[in-house]
């Protein structure tokens, strides 16, 4: 893992190239993988470029700076647009966990590096499947590698991830992943959907790439559902647009809006993390 990183580092010369590599790693690697890079470079006393020194130091502070253990999530790819993060465990251990289908925003993250997010979710309680839409089309054309439209993709996802074997299965999404989050929970009969600053069908019509795409299947799914999930919509108190999105979604199905007090930015999760409140917020949203 360290050697692969070094090889990629060797190809970088400009600050932007280093940033591109590091952003990609932030959006993919589990906490233990990042820590293996940090520790591996340090243990082998490797000379790495300043951009790498800086990034490794930043990640060390983000992930372990408060003294917390490295969560034992192990990553494996399910499809091009889907990666699973789960600590090792036998059937008995896994049946007590909550499965979280997590739909990322346009930047392919959950408002922060995935490793930082996972550090705040105990690995003995959760397993994550991280879903990305690199076409930035709100997942309407489906998840790459799992089908050509959203309903097909989440049906395939259900077959692959077997939510029924877990104690609980929920969906979680940020920003551009918000609509997909609610839709997946409705269609798969999940216990809960959590949408943080999440988009609604209204934003679909506003975006150039998706303005001609239909969200009727979402309305159908709501109509046909025998039982609706608990829907939590999270928005910063002072972010009008996100408050507006929550209102819009609340009109489509029963939902509870959770307002983060004082929050002004769209990226409420990172702000809450900075204030030291992410463990509690995620516990409230996921548990």
């Amino acid at each position, binding site marked *: 893992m360290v050697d692969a990183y070094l090889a990629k580092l060797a190809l970088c010369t400009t600050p932007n190239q280093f940033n591109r590599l590091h952003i990609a790693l932030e959006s993919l690697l589990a906490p233990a993988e990042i820590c293996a890079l940090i520790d591996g470079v340090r243990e082998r006393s490797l000379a790495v470029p300043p951009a790498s020194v800086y990034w490794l130091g930043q990640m060390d502070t983000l992930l372990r700076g408060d003294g917390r253990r490295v969560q034992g999530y192990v990553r494996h790819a399910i499809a091009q647009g889907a990666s699973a993060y789960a600590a090792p465990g*036998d*059937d*008995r*251990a896994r*049946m*007590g966990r909550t499965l979280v289908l997590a739909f990322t925003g346009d930047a392919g993250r959950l408002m922060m590096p995935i490793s930082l997010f996972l550090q705040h979710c105990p690995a003995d309680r959760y397993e994550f499947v991280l879903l990305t839409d690199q076409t930035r089309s709100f997942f309407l054309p489906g998840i790459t590698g799992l089908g050509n439209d959203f309903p097909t993709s989440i049906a395939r996802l259900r077959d692959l991830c*077997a939510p*029924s*074997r877990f*104690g*609980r299965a929920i969906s979680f999404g940020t920003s551009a992943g918000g609509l997909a989050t609610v839709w997946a929970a409705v269609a798969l*009969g999940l*216990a809960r959907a959590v949408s943080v600053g999440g988009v609604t069908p209204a934003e679909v019509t506003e975006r150039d790439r998706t303005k001609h795409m239909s969200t009727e299947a979402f309305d159908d799914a709501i109509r046909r559902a025998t*039982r609706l999930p608990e829907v939590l919509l999270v928005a910063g108190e002072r972010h009008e647009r996100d408050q507006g999105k929550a209102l819009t979604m609340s009109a489509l199905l029963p939902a509870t809006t959770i307002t983060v007090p004082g929050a002004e930015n769209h990226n409420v999760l990172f702000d809450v993390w900075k204030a030291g409140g992410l463990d509690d917020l995620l516990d409230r949203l996921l548990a």
Partner: protein
Amino acid sequence: MTFAERLERHARDRADVPALVSARATLTFGALVHEVDRLARTLRASGIDGSRIVGVTVRGEIDHLLATLALLALGCPMVALASREPAATRARLALRVGVALVLGERPDDAIDGVPFADFHAIRANAGAGSAVPRHDPSRPLLYLTGSGTTGEPKIIAFSERDLSMQSDAHIDYSRERVLRPAHVEYNNSKRMRLYTLWQGGTCILADGATDAPTLLCARHAVTWLELSPMHGASLLEATRVHGPLPAYTRVRIGGARAPIALRRAILAEVTPRLYVSYGTTETSFVSVADPTMHDEREPVGRPTPDTEVLRADRTRAAPGESGTIRLRAPGMATAYVGDDVATVRHFRDGWFEPGDLATLDVDGQLIIHGRADDMMIMNGINIYPVEIERILERHPAVETAAAFPLPSGVHGQIPVAAVELRAGMRCAGGELVAFARDALGVRAPRRVEVVAALPRNAQGKVLKRELAAGFARPDA
């Protein structure tokens, strides 16, 4: 750590989490610790100090658990003398264990020649009593009767250390609300309730309520409903009357074979969240099949490497090959009380051998075929009753089948079966014989009798000896 110390920790960290819940009462961990301590002091002041083995006959489930926990706190060895068992059975168990005092509720609970203490009278005298001294958690305190339906029940004694290790290896109940309709006086319920409390989860107790489990689950927000297969069949009936379980309730069936027909019916009508587990009293939890794993083989999940299947020569069987099963587990029993012969036979080299036949299939699934003792030999051919039962239960008219041997001087043992039909169905035994012959050939039952109800013991296990005795009479 003793149980008392563990509960004290829960009283600190989750004081307001319900520990025991019934229709009439809720005891949080904070309140539970207080009640148990009070009762322990009172029992001690009445002369129960842990130096004698106590037989417990207490009918209310919350009361029974309080008594159990108080005796554990006192370091007092105990055995449940179940109120539902006949007097002779209770007396025999008390004798074998060496009960020196019966803690009961009614004069009838007393056992000849054994001192009796009135549980409620003692409780009513709850005075200060002095603090209970700490004891060694590795002392055997909880006497339980073991697995198996043949001969006298085997007796095991577990320490709190054993129970804590079993709890940690069991399903995670720490955030769950667990309902077991089977009374806490019984073995499996007793252990599971103690595991739940050890882990800090909530015990939902029917405690005499006669409501259907479906209603209890909704009323108490039950997240785990744990049943024997017999209770599973009742659950189907209850669902047809009262509607399905809440979406958050998972069902776990254990304790005996869960036929595929029952599993499918539950999946179709009661809940998709069906789990089937396998374990023994001697070793506790072994494995569990989750909702995605149910098929014709009737698997019970993928166990850890502490489960092995052995050939007759005691080498390990290959995947897919059947043999006898042996088990290891943290906190397991290592001997039977007062039965050296059975101990030597069943506990070997640090493993427990229940005497069950099983297969570890190529996909890692464990399949239990039944007791090795039940295997029949007809003219040198090995026939497992469970094979016959599975085939007969595929017939649309058959609800439950029980296969067993008729002894024959000529052939050794002849397989026959008795069946209960589905409600409203009619079928002749002869038709079932032909049906089974098609599938099983020489291993088919030579006679099948339709009975109104299979004879069963209190736990729901079919009493095949009684059936065999009935068959031996000439045909009417």
